[in-house]
C-alpha cells in the first residue's frame, strides 16, 4: 500500500517537473503506437468494409479467424517478428531488429485483427440500413465501401481507440523485438517492466500511472475533437 501511495506522488512530481527522460519515453510510446495504429487502420478498415459489402465463399471463415486473432498473444507475435527480422532470419539483411520500426511492425500485427473485427461489426449493421439504397443507385463496390466507411466514422473511431488501447499498454511483443534499449527502444511499458525487475516498485507504479493518464488524455482529446462535428450521429 505504501508503494501505491509513493507511486502516485512520484508520478505527480515526474509530470509536474516535466522530467526530460520521462517525456522522451512517453513520446516514443505515443509515436510507436500511433504509427502502428495508422498503418493497422489502413489495412483493417478497407478489409472490414470489403467483408461488409461483399459476399464470397470464405467470408465466414475469414471473419471467424479475424475474431479469434483478437486474442493473439503479443509475446507470440513478438517472437515470430523477432525470428523473421533476426540477422539469421529471412529479413535479416534489413537490420530492423531492435529498432522502433520492428516495434511498429509487431504492434501493427497485434492491432489489425482487433480494429478489423470491431469495424466489421459496425459496418455490417450500417450495411443493413444502406443496402437497398446503395444497390438501387447502382454504385460501384469501391463507392459502397467508401460510403460505409465515411458514414460509420464514429464507430470506426471507437475501433481505432480500442486498437490504441491494446497497443499503448502492450509489453510482450515490443520487449522482444525492441530489446528495451535505453534512448532507442525503451517505451513506458518496457520501462515499467525494467523498474519492477530492479525492485523499484514506486517508480514502476509512477510510470504506470503516467501511462494510464496518457491513455485517458488521448481518448479524451479525440472525443473532444470529434464532438465539434455536431451534425453527425454518435
Amino acid at each position, binding site marked *: 500500500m505504501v508503494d501505491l501511495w509513493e507511486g502516485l506522488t512520484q508520478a505527480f512530481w515526474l509530470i509536474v517537473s516535466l522530467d526530460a527522460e520521462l517525456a522522451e519515453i512517453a513520446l516514443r510510446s*505515443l509515436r510507436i503506437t500511433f504509427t502502428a495504429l495508422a498503418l493497422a487502420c489502413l489495412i483493417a478498415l478497407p478489409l472490414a468494409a470489403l467483408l461488409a459489402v461483399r459476399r464470397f465463399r470464405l467470408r465466414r471463415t475469414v471473419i471467424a479467424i479475424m475474431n479469434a486473432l483478437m486474442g493473439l498473444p503479443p509475446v507470440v507475435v513478438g517472437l515470430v517478428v523477432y525470428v523473421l527480422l533476426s540477422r539469421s532470419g529471412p529479413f535479416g539483411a534489413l537490420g530492423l531488429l531492435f529498432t522502433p520500426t520492428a516495434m511498429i511492425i509487431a504492434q501493427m500485427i497485434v492491432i489489425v485483427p482487433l480494429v478489423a473485427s470491431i469495424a466489421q461489426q459496425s459496418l455490417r449493421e450500417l450495411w443493413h440500413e444502406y443496402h437497398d439504397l446503395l444497390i438501387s443507385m447502382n454504385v460501384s463496390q469501391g463507392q459502397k465501401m467508401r460510403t460505409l466507411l465515411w458514414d460509420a466514422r464514429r464507430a470506426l*473511431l471507437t475501433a481505432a481507440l480500442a486498437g490504441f488501447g491494446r497497443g499503448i499498454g502492450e509489453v510482450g511483443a515490443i520487449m522482444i523485438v525492441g530489446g528495451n534499449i*535505453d534512448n532507442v527502444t525503451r517505451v513506458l511499458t518496457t520501462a515499467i517492466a525494467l523498474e519492477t*525487475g*530492479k*525492485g523499484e*516498485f514506486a517508480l514502476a507504479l509512477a510510470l504506470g500511472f503516467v501511462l494510464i493518464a496518457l491513455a485517458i488524455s488521448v481518448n479524451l482529446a479525440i472525443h473532444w475533437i470529434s464532438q465539434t*462535428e455536431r451534425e453527425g450521429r454518435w
Partner: protein
Amino acid sequence: MILRVVAVVISACLAPALHASETMRMAVTTSFHNSGLADVLLPRIAEDIDLEVQLLVVGTGQALKLGEAGDVDAILVHSRAAEEAFVAAGHGPRRTEIMYNDFVFVGPGEDTAGASGAASATEVLQAIAGTEALFVSRGDDSGTHKTELSLWEDAGIAPEAAWYRAVGAGMGAALNTAVGMGAYILSDRASWLNFGNKAEHEIVFSGDPVLFNQYAFLPVSAERHPHVKAGAVEKLEAWLISPTAAELINGYAIDGEQLFTFNAEPAG
C-alpha cells in the same frame, strides 16, 4: 480531421535524437545491468572514444544466442564454459576477461536454514536442502543459473523437490519472488546491493572462492556476420582493458562496498 490531428501528433513526436557519431549493440546480462556499473561506464565511453553502446539486457543464454545470430556486435557475459564453446564454434574470434565480482546467498533475516553458520557454499546448499527451506532458482539458463546448478552438483543434491522454485526470470524478478516467498536465492553481489525491494532479506553467506564470477567480453565474428561493426568493437575492447576502465571499475562502490575487481590483461 482526425487523421490530420493524428498526423500532427506523429510529426511532433518525430523529434530528432542526438547521438554519438558511432553506435554499436552489446548484449549484457541482467546482473551486470542491475549492478548499475553500466551507468558509470557508458557515458565515459561515449566521451572518450565517441561511441554509443546500446545495451540489450538479457540472460547469458540469450546473449550468446544473439551473438550467434549476429544480432549484436559484442557480448559481455559471465559463464566461462558457454563462452569457450561460443568461441570454439567460431561465433566469436576471442574471449577477453575484463573483471569479476562474486555471488552471494541471500535469505530471510531469521535464516531458518542456518546458512550463515556454513563453512562453504556446498554446506549452505546442504543446509537448505536438509531443512527444505524454500529456494528460488533463476531457471533461465543465465550465467547465474548455470553457476547455481554447478553448485548443486558439487553439493551432490538434485534440486527437484517442492521447496525448489525455478521462476524462469531475470535477476531482479527472481529477487522479488524470493523476497515475496521468504526464500533463499543465489544472487550476484552487485544486483543485490542495488536491489530496491530488500524487505527483511539479507546476505546470509558469501566469500567461498567457488562463488567467484568472471565477466568476459566477446566480439561477434565479423567473418560470419559482415555487418558486425568490428571497428567499433575493437575500440570498445581496447577501452575496456585500459587503465581508465580499471580505475572506473575498481572505484565503483555502493554503500562503500567495492563491487567489481578489474582483472583484464593489458593488450600484448
